[in-house]
């Protein structure tokens, strides 16, 4: 299931480093024209067209128009039915979920899309033998096979071991693939199956036509699409590795859509006639991850194990101006891990630190760090000197690290920016032998942060594949995260309210103890040229239009000048 994880295997940023975007008022005509070819940009070639194997962004974008989702995100990122017929019903013990399917939906070979397809898809994803880089997590089911069953042709039943609130957004908002094709493949051999380059039977608004490797993927409209025949006749997914050229291509009219215009470049072409640009905060975010343990795993005393030192770090910085400079004004400063694009965002729950260098210095004094002869603080013979790890292929992040390291010198911290090859970057961090690193995180539609902050995910001590690098242990935080996950109420509104309160508690703990220092969420640009029917949601958001979060959009868009 495409969980919206912004994990990119290919980091080619260093070759095609520049990005531009466009914005402006393009007139939208009300009468919808039929036909034409929509060309959109993917910044690297897709790695696979098999949805079970998709682990990278270009592939996610390439596959998106071809497969239906069970549920999908609407323009406000609320979960709405796609292939499902209405919202799921939950049993009185809140552990059994029942999903009804549309009756009219058909695969491209003419056969009906049934409960068996959903069950097969889930069972493949839940199969521990499945060889994939994609991240499916069906552990909430009682059993990877019997936990999901077809009651009849149009009804699927999921049985869970406990109440699990993120189930709808995390597990049910994924793709459905035809059992007739993927059910025949041995999950252990899925990675190398010939269908990866050539999906035969699909059910989305567009069907596979051909793939010219390294250049483009061509799709044609699915006349029998269950949500209505698409207006556009053909889609070309064009590989443009140079992001400047990609954005300029939208301005030139050579392509119709660039789904990801990031950074300094967004402002460059914002007032180009005929080009519509939407800019909105992304679901992912960046933070400074401290080693919160008193000692590294190898025994070296940790610099940021003391909460006073972390608070001093926070007081020494002016986040707003720093983020503005690092992102050239295209980032939204954050004080918590719930991003503004999320419905769970609650600014009042966060703990903010206003820049106060004097206070930062006194906190450092209180922590026992005294200023040495060279201006850098010392305690028990240890200099306050650390490597500040950052990925070498991310210019914005490096800029932020440069600013922080200069600012923190003023309170006696010597933090050396250390841009590191991304394959090596994780090594000291995952081993728990580091002081601080700038990391980027993606969020799924649900803001569940279990894997990032719960102590059971602390690596390496508690979990060999955990992504909680901080080593921070706090029973209250664990309890709040457990509550956020289990707070499923009989009504959606009650669930939302309960969880929002849980998330507020989490935000408060994270901020008060400066478990990590949150930085910003990207203001992503999405640029269109000659595309009608694009609808933005709350905060101008088009998050739902990307990465397969809503396959139906492709059938509603049309071209203003179909050739």
């Amino acid at each position, binding site marked *: 299931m495409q969980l919206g994880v912004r994990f990119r295997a290919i980091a080619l*940023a*260093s*070759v095609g*480093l*520049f*990005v*531009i975007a466009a914005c402006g008022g393009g007139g939208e005509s009300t009468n919808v024209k039929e036909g034409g070819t929509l060309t959109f940009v993917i910044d690297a070639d897709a790695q696979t067209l098999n949805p079970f194997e998709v682990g990278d962004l270009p592939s996610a974008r390439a596959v998106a128009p071809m497969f239906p989702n069970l549920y999908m995100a609407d323009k406000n990122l609320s979960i709405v039915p796609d292939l499902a017929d209405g919202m799921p019903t939950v049993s009185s013990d809140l552990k059994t979920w029942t999903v009804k399917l549309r009756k009219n939906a058909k695969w491209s070979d003419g056969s009906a899309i049934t409960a068996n397809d959903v069950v097969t898809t889930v069972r493949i994803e839940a199969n521990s033998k499945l060889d994939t880089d994609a991240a499916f997590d069906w552990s909430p089911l009682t059993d990877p096979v019997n936990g999901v069953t077809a009651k009849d042709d149009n009804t699927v039943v999921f049985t869970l071991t406990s109440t699990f609130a993120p189930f709808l957004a995390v597990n049910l908002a994924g793709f459905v693939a035809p059992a007739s094709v993927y059910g025949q493949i041995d999950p252990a051999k899925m990675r190398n199956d010939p269908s990866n380059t050539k999906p035969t039977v699909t059910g989305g608004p567009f069907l596979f036509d051909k793939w010219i490797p390294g250049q483009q993927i061509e799709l044609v409209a699915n006349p029998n699409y269950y949500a209505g025949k698409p207006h556009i006749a053909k889609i070309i997914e064009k590989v443009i590795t140079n992001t*400047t050229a990609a954005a*300029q291509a939208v301005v030139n009219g050579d392509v119709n859509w660039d789904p990801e215009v990031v*950074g*300094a*470049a967004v*402002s*460059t*072409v914002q007032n180009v006639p005929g080009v519509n640009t939407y800019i909105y905060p992304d679901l992912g975010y960046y933070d400074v991850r401290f080693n919160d343990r008193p000692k590294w795993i190898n025994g070296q005393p940790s610099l940021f194990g003391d909460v006073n030192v972390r608070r001093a770090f926070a007081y020494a910085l002016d986040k707003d*101006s*720093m983020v*503005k*400079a690092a992102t*050239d004004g295209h980032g939204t400063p954050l004080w918590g891990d719930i991003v503004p694009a999320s419905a769970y965002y609650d600014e009042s729950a966060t703990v903010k630190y206003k820049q106060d260098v004097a206070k930062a210095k006194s906190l450092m004094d209180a922590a026992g760090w005294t200023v040495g002869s060279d201006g850098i603080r010392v305690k028990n013979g240890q200099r306050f000197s650390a490597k500040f790890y950052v990925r*070498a*292929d991310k*210019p914005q992040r*490096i*800029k932020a*690290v*440069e*600013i922080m*390291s*200069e600012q923190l010198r003023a309170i006696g911290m010597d933090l*050396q*920016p*250390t*841009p*590191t*090859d991304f*394959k*090596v970057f994780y090594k000291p961090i995952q081993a728990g032998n580091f002081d601080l690193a700038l990391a980027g995180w993606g969020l799924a539609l649900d803001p569940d942060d279990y894997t990032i902050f719960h102590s059971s995910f602390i690596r390496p001590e508690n979990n060999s594949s955990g992504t909680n690098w901080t080593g921070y242990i706090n029973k209250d935080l664990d309890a709040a995260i457990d509550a956020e996950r289990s707070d499923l109420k009989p009504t959606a509104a009650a669930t939302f309210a309960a969880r929002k309160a849980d998330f507020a508690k989490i935000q408060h703990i994270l901020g008060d103890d400066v478990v990590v220092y949150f930085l910003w969420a990207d203001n992503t640009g999405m640029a269109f040229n000659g595309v009608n029917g694009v609808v933005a949601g709350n905060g101008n958001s088009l998050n739902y239009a990307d990465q397969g979060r809503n396959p139906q959009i492709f059938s509603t868009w049309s071209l203003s000048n179909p050739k």
Partner: protein
Amino acid sequence: MADQPLKPVTAGFQSMLGATATAQALAAEEALRHAAAAEDLVVAEVAEPSEIGFWKLAVIRFLHHRIATASLAILLFIIVTAMIVPVFQGNLFRQQDYTHPYGAPFQFHSQQLALPGGLSITVPWTDHLLGTDGLGRDEMARLIRGARVSLAVGLLAMLGYIIIGGMLGALAGYYGGWIDNALMRLTDVIIAMPFILVVVAVTAAFGGVSLTVLVLVIALLGWFEIGRLMRAQFLVLRESEFVQAARALGASDLRIIFRHIVPNSLAPIIVSATLGVSGIILLEAALGFLGYSIPPPEPSWGNLLSTYQEALLMGQVYLVAFPAIALVTTALCINLVGDGIRDALDPRQR
């Protein structure tokens, strides 16, 4: 002649990144000239005009070459500036004013300047002659400081070429036989070496790019041109009459090599080395473009160029233009100086 024919030095590894494919052609051209020119030098030696006379004459000839002399002057100016100015500027290159980024270049304002005796005059003044970068740092200070890295990489890596290539080339050329064969085959391996892969490997192994890493990688993969040139010189010179004579008189190998052959083989090495430095500087910039450059806040021309490529479309063309101009000027001057040296050392070839 040994069974290895003299052939144009395979233009090599700097072309890996397409940065300097053609500088290599020049180096090859060099080899071609000197394959023949070396014989002339032998004659010169046998006729025994004093060595001092030869070098003195060369200096005079070089100074008569106006373009080369001017280039050398510019180059010296750049080097001296890069060495001295940062000492006075101290931390200016890293001082940020990040709330006021992208200061435009050449912005002058009037400034009251106090003169001794209570007088004051108003002069045009600028705080940041070449503007400031995305974090509000003085671009000129960064440019000058960046020259240090570029020049240091260029000169140190070339030193590496001369040490490795010179030694191996001399051994191969002097002793011939299997040593020679082994060296030539090693050269083939080095030429086929995937340069960027080695950069990634060494960078990852050292935990990041540093001056050491850059110099190490470039020197280890680039020495073979000098090596081949040195070998060619030795091949010819060891058969020459004066070496035969020295040998007959019972001189040791070491004495023959250092007293008789090395001094006579220097000319083409000097020319090739000079031209090679510009190639290395361009290579450092190309690596910066691919994201393999000295870590911040230390600037190099390579990372200055790569960091602000996107600025090109944002109206901050100067952030790319200044390092590009500095880079091209330096490389051009080095090449012209190299050309001048060649003419000075080898007047026959003009």
